[in-house]
């Protein structure tokens, strides 16, 4: 196996029960994703983008076929081990930010490190670094409610990358943001991709995002309609 292969899927299929019948959300997806890629998943609503991200992020498992993520076949992972894999290697960014409202910016970003049981001073250094990356070092003590949407999403990015994961999965990270903030977010992710070598995969409808992509995978009705490298 090629060590650069971060993710491989083979005939990956996902069906959801729909009353008497089943709904095929993903149909025979074959994909190979390498370290350091910067990939956009595009396609119409209902085409299966979120479903694919959930499976790649080990939050869900395939009905048929397989997905190997960072050397782990997701179908064979126990709850415990998939949690461990997410904790150490995978960062998530959501459309709705999903920060924990009662905690400060600092504490939100610190949370994944607490789960890793890192020491206090190590956590501190890593959190400060991550907040610097996203340009929010001065808002460490704020609560999410005191931040703008763009700032919240940057906190969410900091939370995703603070543990320096191999893979970051983002589901429509710019959908709730205006143009200026969207560009800011993408530039931040682009820089992280370059400097840390973090692999990014995000689902998006957003035209503004397309220009940043290195590779664009188009889904349609659960199938890969197009897979093209945009820049190299």
């Amino acid at each position, binding site marked *: 196996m090629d060590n650069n292969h971060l993710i491989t899927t083979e005939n990956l299929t996902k069906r959801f029960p729909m009353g008497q019948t089943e709904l095929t959300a993903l149909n025979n997806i074959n994909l190979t994703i390498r370290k350091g890629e910067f990939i956009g998943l595009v396609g119409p609503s209902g085409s299966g983008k979120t479903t694919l991200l*959930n499976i790649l*992020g080990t*939050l*869900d498992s395939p009905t048929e076929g397989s997905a190997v993520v960072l050397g782990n076949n997701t179908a064979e992972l126990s*709850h*415990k081990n998939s*949690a*461990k*894999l*997410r*904790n*150490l290697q*995978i960062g*998530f960014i*959501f*459309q*709705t930010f*999903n920060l*924990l*409202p*009662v*905690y400060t910016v600092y*504490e939100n970003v*610190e*949370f*994944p490190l*607490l*789960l890793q*049981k890192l020491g206090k001073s190590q956590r501190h250094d890593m959190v400060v670094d991550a907040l610097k990356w996203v340009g929010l070092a001065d808002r460490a003590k704020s609560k999410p409610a005191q931040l703008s949407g763009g700032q919240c999403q940057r906190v969410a990015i900091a*939370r995703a990358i603070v543990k320096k994961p191999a893979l970051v999965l983002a589901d429509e990270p710019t959908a709730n943001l205006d143009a200026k903030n969207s560009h800011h977010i993408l530039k931040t992710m682009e820089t992280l991709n370059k400097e840390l070598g973090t692999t990014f995969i995000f689902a998006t409808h957003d035209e503004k995002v397309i220009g940043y992509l290195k590779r664009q995978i188009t889904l349609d009705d659960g199938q890969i309609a197009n897979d093209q490298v945009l820049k190299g």
Partner: protein
Amino acid sequence: MIRFLLKGLVRDRHRSLFPILVVSIGVMLTVFAHSWFSGMINDIIDSNAKFDTGHIKIMSRSYAENKDQTPNDLALTGINDLLQQLRDDIPEMAWTPRIKFGGLIDIPDEAGETRSQSPAMGVALDFYGPGGEVERLNIQNALVTGRLPRNPGEILISDELAQRLETKVGDTATLIGSTMYGAMAVHNFTISGTLKFGMKAMDRGAMLVDIHDIRLALDMDDAAGEIVGYMHPIYKDNTIQSIKAEFNSLHTENDDEFAPVMLSLRDQNGLNDYLVYAESISGMLIFVFVGIMSLVLWNTGLIGGIRRYGEIGVRLAIGENKGGVYRSMVLESAAIGFAGSLIGSILGLALAYWIQVKGINLGDMMGNSSLLISNIVRTRITEQTYYIGFIPGLLSTVLGSMLAGIGIYKRQTAQLFKELEV
């Protein structure tokens, strides 16, 4: 991590303050209700105990066997020594002698001829002795006219009897009865006051006399029908039973029919049956109460848990495992349940204690005091009161969140997200 969770708990009032409030109110009500019911039971015991059974009573064996006839010929003798011994050996209880007797009350006119007459029953008390009878029986408040006996030969009679006999305070009343040895006894008393007993049979024809006077009248020197003992401040069945067992064991060897025997309150007047009945009724009420409280708290726990599926989804995505999330939820609810149950128990106990000590005087409100019916309502704290609210408070909160938490396991992680996104 624990600190992190605690911070969240303290900062999020929906997760801490409100559930704690709900738990503590529920627990407080349960604790208070329990003490209230215990108080009610205790009250009924108490009015029986005060006038009749005592918390414990000593009689001679043969008197005890025929006690309904108040056979004073079988009365205990050597009372002074026995009382002294009891007061020395068991100083935590108040001991006092009583003589019950029956006879005719005769009201003479100026010429000494009978003006009116009625059968009467009487209780002789050690009015001013160390037994504290005047306070115990609330006699001062039960007076309708006149005053307490102050001089030898003064008696109190029921107000109803006084009216029927057309007599009043200051008049002479002659008691015609029989002495301890069966001879006829005729003794003149002066009525110093009239009383409301609060019980039909007594109000129809009863009198209170100082025990020293009745000893003279009935020739009962150093004798008494019974000695009653009272615990302070409240009746404790366990203590009473052990005092009784010990006292009676001292006299088992003695087969004299005049040897003293102790009977506890439960042994008399069918009070045991009553107690068992009352306890089971109040047990049922408390059970229903605790059940309702548990349902409410359970629901609070459930809602609290379900409200947090979103947060839980994020934590799972970030890499916390399901067991960890579940444990932290249960732990949180245990902390909430503990804090709420503790606060509720303390508040409930404090309120119960206050009413136990102070009492609520219904007599004052109704202006209707009597000797037999207690007009002060008191709560009563028993050992059960300490945990009757605490345990269900804690358990139902934890159980509620445990059930809510099962959702974490049942749902696909991705599904928790769906619920989070809408």
